[in-house]
């Protein structure tokens, strides 16, 4: 029993690093709580206010749906789908450029990654604002905004799938003297196609959510109906819009889950 070995899971440096992380996290939290300008009285009566909000929404004005919401709801779905299609078209070249095993020029890799990060960083609402300034209010601005917002996500995932692709078939094709496009279409594409369709479906699901709100800044879809109802304080209509968005988001999720089960 004299041989008492001591097991240490972490090196001192690792332990110090973790400790520093905890310290910084707590310090950041304390500083934020102290300096952020929150009026606590507003928090106390929040439950009352929310109750009031819901009491004004009830009963829901379902008569509004056929005249004012059916069209915008369809528009939202079309914006989401067309935006996703646009995103694939734009994300394919960027993803190819970002994958380090395909594009062997570091400058191009970095450039593609900058595009991907910028696309993901700028929120869909901000993209929508920018494109409303360019194309004017309406579905065109919304579609392009959704497309640009999705490049980052689709491109990043696509590049990762490409980087994981096995080199065997590619080398075989290259050895047989296939041109570049054939190498891509017959060597890489069959390997990454399932991942690609999965990414696409997943993004469509996200885009249904996103396209339901971009109308708040004038980019088309059901968000515009929501904005109007909010500005006019028609809470019973706001309630119906929320129910519509909720149902369409849930339906999209169920649909995507079922398709994913079939193809993967």
């Amino acid at each position, binding site marked *: 029993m004299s041989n008492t070995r001591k097991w240490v899971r972490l090196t001192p440096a690792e332990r110090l690093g*973790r400790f520093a992380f905890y310290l910084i996290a707590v310090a950041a*939290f304390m500083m934020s709580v102290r300096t*952020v*300008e929150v009026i606590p009285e507003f928090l106390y009566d*929040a439950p009352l206010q929310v109750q009031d909000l819901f009491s004004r929404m009830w009963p829901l004005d379902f008569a509004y749906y056929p005249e004012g919401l059916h069209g915008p709801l369809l*528009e939202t779905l079309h914006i989401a789908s067309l935006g996703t299609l646009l995103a694939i078209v734009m994300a394919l070249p960027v993803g190819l450029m970002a994958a380090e095993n395909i594009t062997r020029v570091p400058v191009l890799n970095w450039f593609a990654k900058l595009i991907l990060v910028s696309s993901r960083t700028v929120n869909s*609402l*901000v993209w929508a604002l920018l494109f409303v300034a360019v194309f004017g209010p309406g579905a*065109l601005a919304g579609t392009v905004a959704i497309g640009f917002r999705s490049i980052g996500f689709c491109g990043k995932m696509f590049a990762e799938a490409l980087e994981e692709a096995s080199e065997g078939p590619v080398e075989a094709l290259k050895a047989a003297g296939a041109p570049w496009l054939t190498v891509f279409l017959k060597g890489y594409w069959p390997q990454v196609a399932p991942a690609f369709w999965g990414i696409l479906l997943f993004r469509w699901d996200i885009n249904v959510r996103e396209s339901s709100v971009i109308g708040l800044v004038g980019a088309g879809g059901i968000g515009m109906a929501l904005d109007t109802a909010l500005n006019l304080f028609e809470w019973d209509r706001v309630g119906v819009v929320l129910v519509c*968005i909720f149902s369409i988001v849930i339906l999209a999720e169920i649909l995507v889950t079922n398709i994913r089960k079939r193809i993967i």
Partner: protein
Amino acid sequence: MSAQAMRRESPFKPNWWARLGYLLAFAYALYAMSFLDISWSRFISGLGNGADFLSEMVPPNFERWKLLVGNLLETIQIAVIASAFGVLFSLPIGLCSARNLMPDWLTWPARTVICICRSFHPVIFAILFVKAVGFGPLAGILTLVFASIGFIGKLFAEAIEEISLKPVEALRAAGAPFMSVLVFGVLPQVFNRFVGFASYQFDANLRNSTMVGIVGAGGIGGTLFAAFQRFDYDFLCAILISIIALIMVSEFLSVKVKALFR
């Protein structure tokens, strides 16, 4: 011999179903474009506007950098507080919705809470909270707390459901109380993944806290929206650049943190 070789199936035969799919997608795109009233002429005239817009954006105007820094700080504060409370609340909720540890009567309500938090886009929560608690960062914090519960709660519950139950059984057999089972049997198995989720969510909260201001819930979004409405496009460009820089710094830091806990 050669005849036999001829009969061999082509390795690269055309996939007609895929081609049909592409054709359908193309047809759908045309249909949707006509439905949404998107036309080539509108696109082209938009490009002209876009060129004007871009020329007004460059060079970015950093003159009001004090306002910019103050707003960025508020954005970070919103993200930090919301992540802290979001993580704090999503721990018990995620635990309650893990089907392998908890009884059905507890998992169902917990799962409903998570589902409600996930169902709406954060902007919609932000609008509702602005109406409930007024303009300002409080509404943004509440919004992102809800968003965090929806995301981390779900992933955390899934992580717990995937653990090995052997240590848990061992602890139970040794007569450990419930809290000890959690701390020594469950937590060590999920802690690393949990740190990963939390850092991802902080990242997401930071991104979203730049947006909630558009509907009046504090942070840099409000300034961005104001700059947009006053046609201060050079200031808008400065704001966008600083948001992207902020997120890139935070992505770099989150990679470091993840490496620390691997």
